[in-house]
């Protein structure tokens, strides 16, 4: 049963990932990416990482993809011209290299004796629930967790620093004039 679910979910993920990179319309790509995230979330559930699956759907498929869609629509990107899409030689080199990497990774993952390794020692069935994860984050991992907070704060400051503009509004003869200038 689990095996069938696994196969279906992985097929969904792989297929939607392929669709993401092959669509010409960016909006279609973004929508396929949402599908992809759902497939991955299903795989997380199969692994027992319930909290991660929920976060995957709420944060990625929900919040981030909506942002993506907004940005894509607002930028109104032109469709990529078919003739200017790189040379065949470059493409084929890329394909060969990534194919070799795929073979290498598959081989190494197949040949590693995973059942001798630590995964079989994980006996706690509830390791992926919000309770377990939360108590870990706020006990052992407290300081690294705080560092993540600092990291996000730095990112916010960075965005503000890059985007900050001074906008002044004046009313002249009944017409509102807005002026933008960089804040020094």
């Amino acid at each position, binding site marked *: 049963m689990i095996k069938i679910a696994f196969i279906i979910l992985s097929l969904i993920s792989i297929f939607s990932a392929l669709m993401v990179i092959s669509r010409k319309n960016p909006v279609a790509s973004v929508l396929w990416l949402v599908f992809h995230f759902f497939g991955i979330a299903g795989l997380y559930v199969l692994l027992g990482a319930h909290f991660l699956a929920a976060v995957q759907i709420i944060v990625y498929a929900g919040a981030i993809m909506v942002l993506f869609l907004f940005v894509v629509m607002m930028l109104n990107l032109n469709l990529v011209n078919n003739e200017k899409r790189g040379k065949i030689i470059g493409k084929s080199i890329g394909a060969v290299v990534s194919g070799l990497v795929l073979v290498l990774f598959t081989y190494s993952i197949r040949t590693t004796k995973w059942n001798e390794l630590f*995964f079989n020692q994980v006996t706690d069935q509830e390791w992926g629930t919000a309770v377990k994860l939360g108590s870990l984050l706020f006990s052992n991992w407290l300081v690294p967790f705080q560092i993540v907070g*600092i990291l996000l704060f730095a990112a916010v400051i960075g965005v503000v620093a890059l985007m900050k503009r001074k906008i002044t509004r004046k009313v002249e003869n009944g017409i509102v004039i807005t002026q933008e200038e960089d804040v020094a």
Partner: protein
Amino acid sequence: MNSTIDILDQVNANLPTIILLSFALLMLLIDLFLPKRNHLFRSLLAIGSLCIVYLVVKLLLQEKTVYTYFFSLDSFSYFFHILFITVLVFTFLLSGPYFERTKIKFPETSLLLFFSTAGAMIMISANDLIVMFLGLELMSICLYVLAGMLRKRVQSNEGALKYFLLGAFSSGFLLYGITLFYGITGSTNYSEVNQWISQTSNKLSLTFWIGAGLILIGFFFKFASVPFHFWSPDAYEGAPTPITAFFSATPKAAAFGTFIKILIVAFPLVVSDFELILKIIAIATMGIGNFVALQQKSVKRMLAYSSISHAGYLMVALVVKSNLGYSSILLYLIVYSVTNLGAFTIAYLVNRKNEGSYSYEDYNGLATKYPVLAMFMALFMISLAGIPPTGGFFVKYYIFYSALKADQLLLAILMALFSAISVYYYLKVIVHMYMKPLPDSYETIKSDTHVTMGLIFSSLIIIIIGVAPSFWLTLTNRSVSNILINP
């Protein structure tokens, strides 16, 4: 997972970082109430120097070392903390006129500099791959923003975007490597990884090597070593010049320091297997860095490529993998950071006409008009080229010596050869300053006391290390040999 994790110990181990971060946040609040930028500038300096004093005292007293599961505070991390804060203070000292000229927002810039320094400090003191990665990201995210601070210049946007995309890419490699490691060893802790390796040393699986390889690639990106160097010249050129100086110092030092720590703590048993790949990349980095630097017409780009070639010299010492090699890397990082900070400063002082040209012709006749400035620049160039009375010579000599001692004859010879080539483009600046006539129309160079102070300090450091190199080498050697390994 170790059950005896003490939060208080972890806080203790991060004390310097926490002090730095709290000062940065305090500055953010105080800045709201300050009318003029100048005040903030001075207070930042005061705080920076305060931190230095604090750390120096700690280092000298060897008062306390803290080891926890995630962090350790030993003389190795102290050394790098002091280096990072020194670079930070120098950046503030040397960047004043540039910020006046280009009207970059100073408060945010200084805050981001503080944050990325904190990230570098976390990276060095981390004992765990995940925590190291968090520090790396904290450092890099600030750097991506800093690279694009000159919003209206296309070059700056291009460099920042390239830096961001390739940096994110390399973080992906690193993270995937860490994941594979966690998959097979069951831990991301340096010493637990080492333990696992020692238990299964004769039958390491292919997955282990792929994980290790991906982690190496992640670091090679950060070193800007050759197949992975494409972001660096553009990012260096596009960034505001004082920030470029910061780029060439802190991130590179942090990457090399962390790499040394990982090699010593996590990979002592497999380090000899990395020798070949490190060797090839070291040679390629030295070669391409130097040959491309020869052809540059802009001094800023020349310095960018020269920093690639310096990464190559540092990688020679990584191949040697002896304590002598590692401690000469540490000493090299001091000299190289300080020299680059000084050189970039003079580059932006001299290039006052239009941002983005930085041609050699700007230096024509500098020695007749501004003899002191020319002297400083000559000193920095001589130090970068590695000519005797300066610190730059001795650090290169130590790396050369350690390579010879470890029977790496080929690397030693190539290193000497390439640094001989590098003399050409460094001395070209000196030739322009001393032997070319002064152009007819000459604008005055605007500087201030902070810059003068900073230049004097940096040349003093270079000369002091050049005069008494062995004392400094014993200091760095002590730092390297006292890395805490799971006591």
